[in-house]
């Protein structure tokens, strides 16, 4: 089980901010979310969306430990 966090516009598209999802890799996790909500699935694969696992940006899908925190970060706007 991974804890998924959405930020910025992704949160508005999904209508939620945080959700537990059963997945062993980021790819599995995205597939599960896309099955539920195709618009969210498209947005997660949108330009500039980064993935942080346990608060670290990951370029590759390294697999998820149990209870990993997976955050989808759309392009950051600065403060």
């Amino acid at each position: 089980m991974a804890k998924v966090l959405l930020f910025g516009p992704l949160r508005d598209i999904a209508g939620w901010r945080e959700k537990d999802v059963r997945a062993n890799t980021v790819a599995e996790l995205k597939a599960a979310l896309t099955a539920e909500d195709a618009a969210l699935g498209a947005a997660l694969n949108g330009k500039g969306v980064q993935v942080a696992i346990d608060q670290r940006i990951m370029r590759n899908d390294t697999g998820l430990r149990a209870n990993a925190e997976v955050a989808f970060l759309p392009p950051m706007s600065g403060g």
Partner: protein
Amino acid sequence: MTIALQDTPFDPGVLLAFFSRGRTETGAIVTFTGIARADGGKSEVLELEAYPGFTEGEIRRIAEEARVRFSLHDLMVIHRVGKIKPGAPIVFVATAAGHRREAFEAADFLMDYLKSKAPFWKKEHGPAGEKWIEPTERDHADVARWDG
């Protein structure tokens, strides 16, 4: 080195008083305060979202880079999150260095990062609804000055 997000208003004067107190070995302190312009009451409420922990961590990483690059004695970054009223301070940066050039450049560098690349997501709430904001072309040009 102080890096903090806060969801309540702050007074930049109080922060500078705190930052400068007893700092007898520093030649130069520069501060930057960014304010949400009120635009004569026409301005919209700004909402800043951060990723708690991650956002401070990323800011701390850049702050550490600035500390080394500009030989800083100390620095402080205080950033508002949540809904910010027009006219309220959004960000406060302070840098302390031996000489003024380093203190100025470090504050400038930190602000370019904070305004264009820091992990915040910014939304404007107005009468016409809500709108997510991206960095401006000028923000991108500003931050590019420090590369290479």
